[in-house]
């Protein structure tokens, strides 16, 4: 009998993802399901979908779930976690959702130290709506609302969310990871696992920022898009742990 080394995790349903070919969302979905499975919480987890390409998350996870209003997942998760303090509660948000319209909600949930975990997908663009500039779009990067490239003079420089949230005392764990290579994917999974662990230990708010790709709206093939993550995104968004209260960080 062969032993299975790798297969689709139990936490995912049979539905085919609607994401574009090579989109990072799919990788991160799988990582979340793997971590939750491994922690034995497959039937003990609630996931909050954002407004963004990941809005159909409820189709893909076997967890209880909710379609949150754009940017408000942290507020909604607060209501959920305070009601079910022993469930694992996860919010999943894009950069438009979390860093633009939902800025107040993420900061205040983090500041209050709400005991849920946010997985933040930074793909530098509004994917769902067809490629508008996000708060995390790189300087010079083209989007449908910055057609000759983002101009920091007009739009400011991109916001680095981990750095911003790390100034607060509420978060227990904050790390930035990427999914551009197998090694980074392994690291990303470890970070999500740790964040969920900290949630279980009720240590405070935890967030994992995943630098990801949007081949479609970047106008690149999936492979080129992952290269761009490595060559352009990561230099602006340095990977690493920004907060870890266990390490006194």
């Amino acid at each position, binding site marked *: 009998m062969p032993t299975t080394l790798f297969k689709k995790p139990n936490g995912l349903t049979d539905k085919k993802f609607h994401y574009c070919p090579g989109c990072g969302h799919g990788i991160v979905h799988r990582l979340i399901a793997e971590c939750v499975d491994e922690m034995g919480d*497959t*039937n003990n987890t*609630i996931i*909050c979908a954002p407004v963004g390409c990941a*809005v*159909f998350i*409820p189709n893909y*996870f*076997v*967890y*209880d*779930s*909710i*379609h*949150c*209003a754009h940017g*408000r997942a942290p*507020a*909604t*998760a*607060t*209501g*959920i976690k*305070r*009601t*079910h303090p022993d*469930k694992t509660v996860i919010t999943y948000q894009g950069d438009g959702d979390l860093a633009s319209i939902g800025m*107040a*909600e993420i*900061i*205040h949930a983090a500041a209050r130290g709400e005991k849920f975990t946010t997985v933040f997908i930074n793909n530098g663009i509004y994917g769902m709506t067809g490629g508008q500039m996000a708060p995390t779009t790189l300087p010079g990067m083209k989007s449908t609302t910055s057609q000759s490239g983002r101009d920091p003079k007009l739009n400011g420089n991109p916001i680095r969310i981990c750095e911003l949230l790390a100034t607060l005392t509420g978060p227990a764990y904050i790390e930035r990871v990427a999914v551009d290579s197998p090694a980074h994917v392994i690291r990303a999974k470890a970070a999500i696992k740790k964040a969920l662990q900290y949630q279980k230990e009720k240590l405070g708010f935890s967030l994992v920022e995943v630098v990801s790709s949007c081949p479609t709206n970047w106008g690149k093939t999936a492979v080129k898009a992952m290269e761009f993550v490595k060559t352009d995104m990561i230099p602006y968004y340095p990977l690493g742990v920004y907060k870890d209260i266990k390490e006194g960080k």
Partner: protein
Amino acid sequence: MAKVLMKGNEAVGKAAIQAGCKFFAGYPITPQNEVPEYLSRELPLAGGTFIQSESEVAAINMLYGAGGSGARCMTSSSSPGIALKQEGIGYCVFGEIPCVINSVARGGPALGTIQPSQQDYNQATRGGANGDYHIPVLAPASIQEAVNFIKEAFEIADVYRTPVIVLEDGLIGQMMEPVDFDVPVKKREHTPKSEWAMGYGNGNPHLIEGIVMDAPMCEKKNRRFFKEKYEVIEKEEVRYEEYMMDDAEYAFVAYGSSSRICKTAIKTLREKGIKIGLIRPQTLWPFPQVPFQNKNIKLFIDIEMNMGQMVPDVALAVNDKNKVKFFGRCGGMIPSPEEVVEATEKIIGGAK
């Protein structure tokens, strides 16, 4: 029947706890501050969660989560704060979240004044979120009624899985009156929350739905709401009071604080020989229809603390806009019984 003296806002807080409210999120705004202040102290003692949210937007979205998780929950705010909640209210509607929204109106538009007003009739009854929907709106005229309606609101919310608005004005929020907290409110049957709420799925996933991307399915859901909720509510949940209507030839139509002023005015007008009564809608949606079929009434005189927002509903109920007249004050002004009397005499005089 031990009555206690209490500020309207605090009584609302206490009623919510009595009704089993386990989650409150709200943001300070005059004239409803005593609601969160009271609950910040008392709700945790009753085993509930109080959160002063970062904004009204966050508050309603917290309810969306807490109510979606099966907790009885409430938020409270006032005029511009309710405006900010509109999107979230839409989500609570679509996600079928039972929750109570306490709205204590002040003069508007914008920051307006902080004085009592009824200028938020449209805001409450017509919404301002997107899409087709209705929300039951209860309009108490006394602190006692506010207490009873808050408790009822939680029941209605659970039965129909819908947000329910309790619409007061600053006067009811701020004044003190004796109130009896033991008036019984009928507990209603409803689907157990464990059958649909988050946290009870156990591998048979429970989804709180904000989007139905397939248009035919979305239409189906809309139609289900109208059939299973709104039509039933229109039949079952209409509430109104008729006061001195037996022999009436004229009828005031007023709700909340302005109805009390009408009652005082009726006394004076009756002394002057004018047979006038009062139709007081206690639900603004569904809007009562039956009392307006009274053929003895020559004129329906709508008295509000606004510019006449209820007039269309009265005209539709009467099915003749020419039989509906209006007098009102707005911007935080409360009409005195004397000026209501005067306005009425003028209207009736004109009608003769």
